[in-house]
């Protein structure tokens, strides 16, 4: 798994498996920009089931509000923490 650089464009996987997930459905399939690299954390989607943590790189991804919801405010944003296995380079 290669890392994403600050400022690079990424798309959130449009993936809808059952279970404990930490990616809000409103962001799936959407494209944003890496705002911050948070570091390596254990994957809560595995920890929730008592499995080993499988450390993952965590990013903050900044989305334009208007790419996610209907809004006339072009500059407004939503920042979301997303693990690397949910992201793909655009």
């Amino acid at each position: 798994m290669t890392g994403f650089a600050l400022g690079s464009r990424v798309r959130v996987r449009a993936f809808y498996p059952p279970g404990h997930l930490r990616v809000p459905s409103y962001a799936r399939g959407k494209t944003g920009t890496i705002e911050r690299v948070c570091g390596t954390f254990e994957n809560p989607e595995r920890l929730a089931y008592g499995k080993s943590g499988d450390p993952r790189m965590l990013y903050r991804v900044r989305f334009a509000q208007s790419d996610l919801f209907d809004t006339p405010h072009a500059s407004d944003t939503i920042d979301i923490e997303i693990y690397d296995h949910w992201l793909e380079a655009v």
Partner: protein
Amino acid sequence: MSDDHDHPHDQDEHPQTYHERLSIALFELLVEKGIVSAADVQAEISAMEGRTPDRAAQLVAHAWCDPAFKARLLADGSAAMREFGIDPGTMHLVVVEDTLETHNVIVCTLCSCYPRMLLGVPPGWYKSRAYRARVVREPRTVLAEFGLAIPDDVTVRVHDSTADMRYMVLPLRPPQTDGWSEGKLAALVTRDAMIGTAMVRDAALT
């Protein structure tokens, strides 16, 4: 479990849910096996409920008065918290700064993540479905309902605490507070200003 057990649950006003029963059973097993004591759990609950936003308000006032500290706070919130004498525990704090061009607001749409080590117990509305669902979809409308009108030329940044980070807003220092002591400034800083649903009021209005 014994009939005379003493544990820190309220007298429920509704039938216990599955998860309430599960948590009580887990708690009682941990006590029976000697892994924790009821007193330990009660002490932790008291500590949680005893945390108030007061220390966070002092942290904000200190950041307003000390630009080097502010820079450290924005670079690594937990380290700056520790430096200021507040124990972050395992919390990874991200501090987001309001400016004249940008207003920040915090939410956890998936559950109710909140920087408890810094701000204490979250307000009920923060955990409500209405706030969590709406503030990402229509932040300006929600903020207006809190009495906060955001001008069109100010960018609103919503921060959704979906994973391991916890957030605090560093609000704008109000005008007409030059030369104020940190203590006097801290008294202006409210919990809601550090969540982003309020601004620190102009000193002239207080």
